[in-house]
């Protein structure tokens, strides 16, 4: 049987164009001859695929025709999610915006950095006095001379220079002295010097670094005690614009300065401090701040370097709390605070005269 004829037969068989006898005969042939059987199957599959392909093409044409009738643009317009203009702006330009933003941030930070805005310390200085370098080298020179001398004369005493100076004031007649913590924070040893120039050895009895308060105790054997303290520590807060003054040792001789309470809060709104207009300088730190009646209202502490006349003092209530917080075992008995103010009726000059015996220069010795 030729191929062409076989195909014809197969097609007639698949299209059911055979009569019953013919069909039976062919099915028998198919069963016996595997080759013919596979030809039938192959042809059936191939023409089936062809048919399906035709159907697919037809369906696609139908769908295309349907598609023609639809207003595609209107639907597209309707379903498009229109992001707000700002999001579109971002999508289209985000790389440029990012670059611009980083430049802006750099510029701002750079400016802040170079103008010193970021470093707190540059605008706010604590006012202990660093004894200046020239002075120091001078003393060193003297010291080496003394060293040379001491080889010959062993009785000569070697003195090391003090490193920092501040001010302190007596709070009890027994020799408790209040000053700033930052004055004595690096101390190896501390001496206090009274108005007549006599030095006494002292030790740090108690401090509150957070509030920048330190309490010293004079331990020197030559110290005989002070007379009755003429001032009292004011417990209540001073009013704005109240006249206040300070007295301290920004230099070797005592200096008086007065001004007013200009704010009841300190740097960045710190409520433990006053802002005052009293002129103060390095060395004033730890000095007393008094009101017109001779009550101590605060401890002079620091100033802002970039602004004129912005100075800070710790409120006396903070000092009172600190005194109460002194651990009992570091004292023989509770500090006996003066409650009688003997300055109140006096003029300012008379007040200062009485005051000067109770305000000390604090000299701090440190290794480095």
């Amino acid at each position, binding site marked *: 049987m030729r191929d062409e004829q076989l195909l*014809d037969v197969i097609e007639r068989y698949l299209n059911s164009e055979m009569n019953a006898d013919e069909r039976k005969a062919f099915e028998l042939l198919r069963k016996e001859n595997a080759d013919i059987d596979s030809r039938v199957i192959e042809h059936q599959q*191939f023409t089936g695929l062809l048919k399906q392909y035709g159907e697919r093409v037809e369906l696609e044409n139908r769908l295309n025709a349907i598609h023609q009738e639809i207003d595609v643009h209107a639907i597209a317009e309707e379903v*498009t999610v229109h992001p707000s203009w700002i999001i579109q702006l971002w999508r289209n330009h985000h790389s440029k915006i990012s670059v611009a933003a980083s430049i802006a941030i750099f510029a701002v930070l750079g400016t802040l950095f170079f103008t010193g805005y970021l470093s707190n310390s540059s605008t706010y200085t604590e006012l202990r006095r660093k004894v200046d370098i020239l002075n120091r080298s001078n003393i060193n020179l003297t010291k080496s001379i003394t060293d040379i001398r001491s080889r010959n004369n062993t009785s000569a005493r070697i003195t090391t220079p003090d490193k920092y100076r501040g001010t302190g004031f007596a709070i009890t007649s027994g020799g408790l002295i209040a000053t700033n913590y930052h004055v004595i924070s690096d101390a190896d040893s501390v001496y206090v010097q009274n108005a007549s120039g006599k030095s006494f050895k002292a030790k740090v009895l108690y401090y509150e670094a957070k509030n920048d308060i330190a309490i010293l105790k004079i331990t020197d054997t030559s110290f005989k005690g002070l007379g009755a303290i003429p001032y009292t520590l004011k417990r209540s807060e001073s009013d704005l614009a109240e006249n206040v003054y300070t007295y301290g040792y920004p230099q070797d001789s005592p200096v008086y300065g007065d001004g007013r309470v200009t704010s009841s809060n300190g740097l960045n709104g710190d409520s433990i401090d006053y802002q005052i207009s009293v002129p103060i300088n390095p060395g004033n730190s730890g000095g007393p701040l008094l009101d017109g009646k001779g009550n101590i209202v605060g401890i002079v502490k620091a100033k802002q370097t970039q602004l004129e006349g912005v100075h800070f003092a710790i409120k006396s209530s903070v000092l009172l709390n600190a005194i109460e917080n002194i651990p009992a075992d570091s004292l023989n008995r509770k500090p006996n605070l003066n409650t009688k103010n003997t300055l109140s009726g006096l003029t300012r000059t008379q007040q200062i005269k009485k005051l000067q015996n109770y305000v000390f220069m604090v000299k701090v010795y440190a290794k480095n």
Partner: protein
Amino acid sequence: MSKELKSSTPTDSEIVFGILNNSESAIKRLYAAYFPMVMQLIINNSGTEDDAKDIYQEAIIVLYNKIKKGDFELSSKLKTFIYSVCRRLWLKRLSQMNRYGGDLKDFQDYSPVDDEIEQHNERDIQFTKMQGALQLLGEPCKTIIEDFYINNRSMQEICESFGYTNADNAKTQKYKCLQRLKKLFFQQK
């Protein structure tokens, strides 16, 4: 009235039975009902109107074949099925174009339709091969084959339209054409 009916969403069973009965209007209504949904998916995921058309028609074909085969279960929603197929097809298209950014903005629920897509792809490959083979076959073979095997025209009709002197000649010609088509089809990779 008729316009309103047209625009309203047909029920799933209407569509399924309509397609099983070869109803032209069923396909039309199906097409109109869900095209906006697919357009929304494609347009808002970096596609164009033409992409939407291609993807949607492919999905309709998948659905059509599934219904014709009789294995579309009415328990699953037509809408979800179409959306899922379109979503899957579009993801594939996007990754082929290397434009898939990792997330697709979705507007509907979807379900896995991997089997359907798989079947559809296999079939598509066969059809592409067939299309290529028919193209290479050339005239008049292509028309003879299409007329006989696809359009179900009788040998007699073909014989007349091509001006063959007798049906046997036409048959011989058809036989040769078919052999060549098979050869071309199986040669393709």
